[in-house]
């Protein structure tokens, strides 16, 4: 294995991590501000991808597709928040888990009802397709670089939003003390809808961006959802920094584990067995990482200590 290949794989890990971050950021914000576990976050990811695919197919523009993903996911998020989620804030986690589990069923089958049972087509725009040559001679897909770039810009914007703007101040206040921001005269209901829509929009955008290199199909959100949960739990629920660190950790573990574990096992067993054992272990690797982190720090890397 050459150093160049390792660099390429690290890039791949970064790229999948940064996309996970877009999912996880919304999830962690929603949990941090409203104390809500939203299992239906993966559905918003799917909504974004479907909206993008449908729009891109109709207009031929990838950019319009991204816009549609943002809008559709944000609207779906706001709608769900107003109709359902709002009634769950003062419930325990159990009710939230069940209600959002029900939402997954509705979203998934609803999407299938509208778009049919077959995967949709969504492709990389020509301007971003194909590989580029990086310093050192690495051939790397331009679109994946684009994803890393977009992800970093969005992450930066999010940190700026939370850290530097009035909205961010309110969000952070909301994390600490709901009564206090009510006392400050902030319209909590609106703030919550806004935060939820923001989280949804991020998920939807991630869905559209990733959808271009994956299969746009019903149920595409759930695997990502579980990964995103792993991310925010590792990072510490409610912490945006934690979500970023967690996402990169998970992305890198997942990518590099799949490559290095089989090789590691090949040192001690025969190649076929090593390939299979390695593959089996690497699919469990992130969950082991999560369990290890939680046992070590029960509230995640950046979570509030109780």
């Amino acid at each position: 294995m050459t150093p160049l290949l390792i660099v390429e794989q690290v890039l791949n890990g970064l790229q999948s991590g940064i996309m996970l971050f877009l999912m996880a950021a919304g999830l962690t914000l929603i949990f941090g501000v409203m104390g809500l576990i939203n299992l239906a976050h993966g559905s918003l990811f799917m909504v974004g991808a479907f909206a993008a695919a449908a729009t891109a197919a109709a207009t031929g523009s990838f950019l319009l597709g991204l816009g549609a993903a943002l809008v559709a996911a944000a609207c779906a998020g706001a709608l769900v928040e107003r109709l359902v989620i709002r009634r769950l804030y003062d419930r325990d986690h159990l009710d939230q888990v069940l209600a959002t589990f029900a939402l997954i069923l509705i979203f998934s089958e609803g999407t299938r009802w509208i778009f049919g049972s077959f995967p949709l087509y969504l492709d990389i725009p020509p301007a971003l397709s194909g590989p580029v040559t990086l310093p050192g001679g690495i051939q790397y897909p331009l679109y994946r670089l684009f994803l890393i770039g977009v992800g970093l810009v969005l992450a930066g914007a999010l940190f700026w939003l939370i850290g530097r703007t009035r909205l961010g101040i309110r969000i952070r206040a909301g994390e600490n003390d709901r009564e206090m921001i009510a006392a400050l005269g902030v319209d909590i209901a609106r703030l919550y809808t806004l935060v939820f829509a923001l989280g949804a929009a991020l998920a939807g955008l991630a869905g559209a961006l990733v959808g271009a290199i994956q299969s746009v199909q019903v149920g595409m959100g759930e695997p990502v959802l579980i990964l995103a949960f792993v991310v925010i739990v590792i990072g510490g629920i409610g912490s945006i920094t934690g979500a970023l660190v967690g996402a990169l950790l998970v992305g890198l573990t997942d990518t590099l584990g799949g490559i290095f574990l089989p090789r590691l096992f090949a040192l001690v067993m025969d190649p076929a067995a090593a390939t299979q054992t390695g593959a089996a272990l690497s699919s469990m690797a992130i969950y082991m990482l999560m369990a290890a982190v939680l046992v070590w720090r029960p509230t995640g890397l950046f979570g509030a200590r109780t």
Partner: protein
Amino acid sequence: MLKQLLASVALAACATTAMAEVKVGLITTLSGGGAGLGIDTRDGFMLALEQAGRDDVEVVIEDDQQKPDVAVQLADRLIQSEKVDVLTGIVWSNLAMAVVPAATAQGLFYLSTNAAPAQLAGAGCNPNYFSVSYQNDNLHEAAGAYATKAGFANSFILAPNYPAGKDSLNGFKRFYEGELAGEIYTDLGQTDYAAEIAQIRASGADSVFFFLPGGMGISFLKQYADSGVDLPLIGPAFSFDQNILQAVGDAALGVKNTSSWSKDLDNAANAAFVTAYSEKYGRLPSLYSAQGYDTANLLLSAMDKAEVSDDEAFRAALMEADFDSVRGKFSFNASQHPVQDLYVREVVREGDILTNQIVDTAITDRGHAYEAECKM
């Protein structure tokens, strides 16, 4: 005991109606992410019945949600409550393994429209079990044969880490004579293949064989096309099916894939089938549609020769395979699996849509590798 019960029910039916009815239970996946395959199976099957215009077949259709336990429940219901004579329709091997052994043990006929795992072809073969599709390894074997024929000497092969994935790579290797540049098992349901593609690029391979059914294949093909790696790809038909191709887009153009059927197969039955299917459903048929269609026609042909209540006669009638298969020549071997030609197709663009075109025959008159193990 149950068999006696069924027989007596059939006798009662004979007494009232002139013609013995055959009741078919079609269990397939109609909801969830894998619904497309089941819908095609159902539509192909029902089209054949409709064309035959017969009123002596009753079909009860059930959705297994791609869950093995649900499939088992449904099979129980169809056997116990609906008292069906024949079961069919299951798409997935793991569901078939959950349903078929118990169903055949209870004396029912099972006609497979798709899933045909090795266990049921070899040691676990059963007089009441017919695979009308293929044996699971067939398309992978064809890919291996084609790779050899095309002169590839250093293939990189990958499949998901589950039994069908392992069978796939073994099937490929059975007919492939070159070296392996690499062999990878990916996660089941994996969506990102950047890491694998990087390994392919670095491996010095001259071709790539992959088996990634469903959404996995779509993701892989898109990412592969975008990676700039331009080694020739070979895969089984599953990732190039009519319904999936549109979602893959141009990334699939030119890719070779192996299949037991193609819509451009040159025989009258097939031409009629493709036309009728497209007219009725407004879309092109897939391999699953074709297999569903063939299964129904096989069933009808057997019904013309024997009563379903007479196990021996009905089995013999099925064995004759006296129907016009959309695959052209079609016959069963002793283990009741097809003996058929396996083709190499290439993805081409026809007008607005992507579809497949036959470019070569990979193996002729292929049965399967487990025949010797079948003691029947």
